């Protein structure tokens, strides 16, 4: 554990240095990556470990985003506290949902969470405090003056999101390696046997769902920070699907891959853009390309590295060893 802590601190240091050396656009992308890291981590916890499928994590992110924005806009709470609240309240909300979720398996859960993803954002228009389609402005404030004049807003976001990502990944890695992670894997594989071992499967599933929701809520709050605004359309169904894609690309079972998944999610629109502009911006191409890329990637990932790049690498290394040996 001590080793992991040191590793994360070192990683943070490296990221800090990188943040100082790249331009503002990259810094912004870095912040997005950090957000996705947390969101994908929440899917890995839920699906890879406890075996529950969620197609509605985008909606949970929205939930967290609104909580944070309300905290800042209405209660003028400090930013960090808003994030903590986002994680907590979404976690509690997820726990309540989890009671339903714990009783459902596979496709039933997929269906329910899908309905959540479609239904929840439209609720935002029901309550005027949520600001309708325009949403609510989340005033991120200015970076502390002590960081200097030239310290840009996006760098500030980058610091916040990266720090949050590092801390949550540290916690998550620890939890997944502890008896909790083991228990979730066990009940995913055989829930009767797990019960006989003294595992309260319902409670554990709810716990996993709740934790995962909390993480999603935090990711949502951070996402809202990077765009300064929370509105229903920022959390479309495609976001939920993208998160699943990211998790599959990362290796659904493997926290180490989250960086890759997150980077890819950020890069895809970029690639789509540049390819589309090469083909002269025809509406037919621009309208189909981004969807095509995400989908194709998803398909390639399940076909070729179903258990993540980690496994693939492991195999390659293994092969090389047996070849040379």
């Amino acid at each position, binding site marked *: 554990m001590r080793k992991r802590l040191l590793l994360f601190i070192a990683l943070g240091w490296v990221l800090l240095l990188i943040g100082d050396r790249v331009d503002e656009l990259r810094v912004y992308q870095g912040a997005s990556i950090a957000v996705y890291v947390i969101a994908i981590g929440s899917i890995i916890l839920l699906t890879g470990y406890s075996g529950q499928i969620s197609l509605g994590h985008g909606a949970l992110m929205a939930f967290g985003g609104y909580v944070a924005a309300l905290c800042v806009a209405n209660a003028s709470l400090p930013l960090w506290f808003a994030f903590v609240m986002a994680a907590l309240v979404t976690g509690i909300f997820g726990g309540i949902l989890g009671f339903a979720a714990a009783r459902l398996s596979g496709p039933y859960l997929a269906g329910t969470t899908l309905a959540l993803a479609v239904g929840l954002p439209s609720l935002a228009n029901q309550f005027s405090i949520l600001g309708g389609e325009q949403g609510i402005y989340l005033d991120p404030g200015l970076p502390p003056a002590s960081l200097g004049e030239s310290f840009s807003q996006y760098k500030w976001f980058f610091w916040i999101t990266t720090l949050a990502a590092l801390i949550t990944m540290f916690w998550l890695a620890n939890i997944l390696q502890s008896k909790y992670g083991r228990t979730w894997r066990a009940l995913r594989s*055989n829930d009767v046997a797990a019960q006989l071992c003294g595992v309260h499967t319902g409670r554990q599933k709810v716990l996993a769902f709740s934790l995962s929701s909390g993480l999603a809520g935090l990711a949502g709050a951070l996402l809202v920070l990077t765009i300064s605004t929370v509105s229903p359309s920022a959390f479309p169904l495609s976001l939920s699907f993208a998160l699943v894609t990211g998790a599959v690309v990362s290796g659904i079972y493997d926290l180490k891959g989250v960086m890759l998944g997150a980077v890819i999610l950020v890069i895809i629109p970029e690639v789509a853009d540049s390819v589309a502009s090469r083909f002269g911006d025809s509406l037919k191409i621009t309208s189909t390309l981004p969807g095509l890329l995400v989908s194709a990637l998803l398909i390639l990932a399940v076909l070729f590295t179903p258990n993540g790049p980690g496994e693939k690498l492991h195999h390659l290394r293994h092969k090389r060893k047996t070849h040379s040996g």
Partner: protein
Amino acid sequence: MNLMSTDTTLLAINGLTVSFGGLRALSNVALEVKPGEVVGLIGPNGAGKTTAFNAICGLVKPDAGELFLNGQKHAWPQTDQLTELGIARTLQGVGLFGDLTVLENVMIGAQKFSHSGLISAAFGRSSKDEKVLRERAQTALERVYATGIANRRADTLSYPDTKRVAIARALVSEPKILMLDEPAGGLGQQDIEWMNSLIRNLTAQMSVLIVEHHMDVVMSVCDRLYVLNFGEVISSGAVEVVRRDPAVIAAYLGASKVNS
């Protein structure tokens, strides 16, 4: 170990009745397990043996019947409370967690000895707890001679090894009552003999309730037998008595087994 000192029954059930829709799987079944005893539950296929286990383990809901633990009346337990009550059980199918390692499988069985919470786990503070679990798991694996496979994934094991691990996973919770559902099923002769001696050795620390079709095993490890047929106890008592009971021979053993 002091738990054998009382003379009360460890486990008793009375008037257990279970039905599935129109099918009455168990009717008015009674049985007892005393400290240090190995009690066999035998009977034809479909007689209701596993169902009786399931009722005790909270996996089916009885229509009627009472349960006594240590002489005290107790509600039919929730499945996940069994280990706390000192009961552990193996499944008729093996039921290991396929993508966990053997050690992890057994550590799950030892969960009740871990008290660290989520927060301390998050901060990586549960390592002491983990160590306790690991040591206990290792000890349990030693008892079934399976330390060598501790780091293998459970779904890569040979069949006899899975049986060992399943027993280790049950043993690790230090039960007072161990329920084994067909422990010898599918094993070869040598492994069966090994299983026999293991079960006999266990009685120093616990009572065993066993369902088994392998008569050699039943005869050599059990102190007493209950015979179920069509959900009813048709015979019970000492092994030697039961095996000669004509009703048992007719319903279950068949003529050829009587003299072997």
